[in-house]
């Protein structure tokens, strides 16, 4: 059984929470005590029956106000797959929350209210999903019950949204007409939309191929820890611990350590369960090399034939997440793979209007704004472009004084 991580995107009241509640309910992943608690809450708020959206609203303030404040994670499994859902709220902090949910997702469900059609927000959601490199997109046209399950409505939304996704360059986009409230095409096929012959949402989630979502071509191994326990019996053990972020490695492979450029061979791939002849992303292993070379945390072990770049300056997209805006020349820390370095934002090259996708000049980036910047780091960063490799192209920006995470960054390239 494999694992699929997805996120839901939609504006307030498009039905995200209801949809997740419906998926879990119909997939029999809601427990009776949770249902009872939801019934009690619904009644307290003057409703009857069960409001499925209450399942994801976990904080007291959320239940009292009937809103979602923070990203909530939900879990369910079918006989085919285990799922992790990041449910992201749709209010003003939306960009920040959606970026967070999207950063680890294989798939995004963008909800579109059938009555309203493709709104500015729908485009924004698709843009963020694409920017964060989510490989698969499902446009769920929701509330079909409120448009008499009309095929014409569905088709015109599909045409609109397809055109936009093409403009973005999104490759895998699927459309499903649903009613989250009544369950049509969520888990059960809808008898009220015989014109729709595609898969239900759950079938789609279970069937989507995700083996290729992870880059298995370029071996990237950021060193997390150096292990030299110096215990009796193992006086010379020196292993490099980390997780293979992309690609595969075999015992005997030629490797190069970056940024130093030292070369060696893989002697052993060590795990608690014994040595391996080959290991692939996302396995956590300990590598032993033939030669004793100087390696520390933050270095990256790769194959010499397709190395990443080592750059002291690079261009990146930033999603700004702090109340304190980003000013050009601002000094920060960036954490990229296992490497944390001092950095300065040399220049804000442009800001993206995420509603129109138009770019324009900017003197600062405010909370929830997205822009392209030029960053200079104190020590070289061993990286790939984010579009080629999510793991070696992503970084976070940390404010050294508050210690807060203030931005998500995606490397576009170095000059």
């Amino acid at each position, binding site marked *: 059984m494999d694992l699929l991580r997805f996120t839901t995107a939609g504006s307030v009241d498009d039905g995200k929470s209801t949809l997740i509640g419906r998926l879990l309910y119909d997939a029999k992943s809601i427990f009776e005590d*949770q249902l009872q608690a939801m019934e009690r809450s619904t009644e307290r708020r003057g409703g009857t029956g069960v409001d499925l959206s209450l399942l994801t*609203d976990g904080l007291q303030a959320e239940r009292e106000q009937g809103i979602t404040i923070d990203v*909530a994670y939900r879990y369910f499994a079918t006989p085919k797959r285990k799922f992790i859902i990041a449910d992201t709220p749709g209010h003003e902090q939306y960009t920040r929350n959606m970026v967070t949910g999207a950063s680890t997702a294989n798939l995004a469900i963008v909800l579109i209210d059938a009555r309203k059609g493709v709104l500015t927000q729908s485009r924004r959601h698709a843009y963020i999903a694409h920017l964060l490199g989510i490989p698969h997109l499902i446009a769920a046209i929701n509330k079909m019950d409120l448009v008499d399950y009309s095929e014409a409505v569905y088709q015109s939304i599909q045409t609109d949204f397809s055109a936009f996704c093409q403009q973005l360059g999104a490759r895998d986009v699927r459309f499903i007409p649903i009613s989250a409230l009544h369950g049509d095409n969520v888990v059960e096929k809808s008898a009220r939309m015989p014109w729709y012959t595609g898969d239900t949402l759950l079938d789609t989630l279970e069937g989507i191929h995700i083996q290729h979502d992870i880059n298995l071509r370029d071996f990237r191994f950021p060193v997390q820890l150096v292990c030299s326990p110096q215990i009796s019996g193992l006086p010379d053990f020196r292993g490099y611990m980390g997780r293979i972020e992309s690609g*595969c490695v075999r015992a005997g492979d030629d490797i190069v350590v970056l940024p130093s450029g030292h070369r060696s061979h893989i002697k052993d791939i060590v795990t608690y369960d014994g040595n391996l002849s080959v290991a692939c992303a996302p396995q*956590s292993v300990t590598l032993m090399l033939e030669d004793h070379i100087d390696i520390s945390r933050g270095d990256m072990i790769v194959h010499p034939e397709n190395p990443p770049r080592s750059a002291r300056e690079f261009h990146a997209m930033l999603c700004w997440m702090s109340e304190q805006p980003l000013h050009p020349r601002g000094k920060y820390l960036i954490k990229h793979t296992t490497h944390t370095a001092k950095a300065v934002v040399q220049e804000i090259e442009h800001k993206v209007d995420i509603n129109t996708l138009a770019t324009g000049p900017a003197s600062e980036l405010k909370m929830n704004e997205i822009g392209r910047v030029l960053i200079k780091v104190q020590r070289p960063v061993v990286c790939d472009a984010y579009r080629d490799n999510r*793991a070696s192209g*992503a970084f976070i920006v940390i404010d050294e004084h508050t*210690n*807060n995470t203030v931005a998500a960054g995606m490397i576009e390239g170095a000059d």
Partner: protein
Amino acid sequence: MPAPLSHLDVLESEAIHIMREVAAECKNPALLFSGGKDSIVMLRLAEKAFRPGRFPFPLMHVDTEHNFPEVIAFRDRRAAELGERLIVRSVQDSIDRGRIKIRHENESRNVMQTVTLLDAIQEFGFDACFGGARRDEEKARAKERIFSFRDEFGQWDPKNQRPELWDLYNTRVHPGEHMRVFPLSNWTEMDIWQYIAREKLEVPSIYYAHRRDVVWRGGWLPVSHLVQPKAGEEVKNIMVRFRTVGDMSCTCPVESDAATAEAIILETAGSRITERGATRMDDRTSEASMELRKREGYF
């Protein structure tokens, strides 16, 4: 190309990665080990992350003195087998020193643990504590980060959490503040039992079906020195197992004849009640009780 990893392999690798990040970036971490199934899984993950080396942190248990004796015996034995250092800090000790006021000897000590825990974190100057909490356990937990920041009072502010992007964890804290780190965030009860079965992990005997004297108080409570039958209460002897192991005065077993991890997996697949809903009286008091406890600094 090798076959894709199973969900357990992916979760395991994620947890190992988290533990190694803490070992690399935090100055003085600890692993909270209760002897319960989630922390038993954490110990195996720590072995996978750090062997052949030693754990780069001690284990710590906050003992309520209301624990099941089997669990405490297991805790000591497991720590000794691993050859790792176990620190125990006692709620009774906090009570004796006047740090905690109690109304009577037998009341639940779940909430009280927070005081002892925060005192111990301060005593040792821990800047990161691994906890075995999972997001599927409870609504407030579902909103918590893997690296969960605690201010100098040990408090969690759910509305003001750091964004957690990719698996680039921000571990930075100022002196006096600390992190709670939850490597099992993305695991479910089912994953835990599947992993226990796969890794053939030993767990305290009370997790498996056994006969026990219980009384009905809106749920079966185990009869012990803390729970004595009241007048008119009928003591029954039935086959039960525990889904969680907590304070004996408020942890209910479920009726079951599952005697192996495999049998528990089958039962879990068919279960219609959540782990905490079935077993924790203290979580039923109010919808927000876990959130309130967490804000105060609870696990």
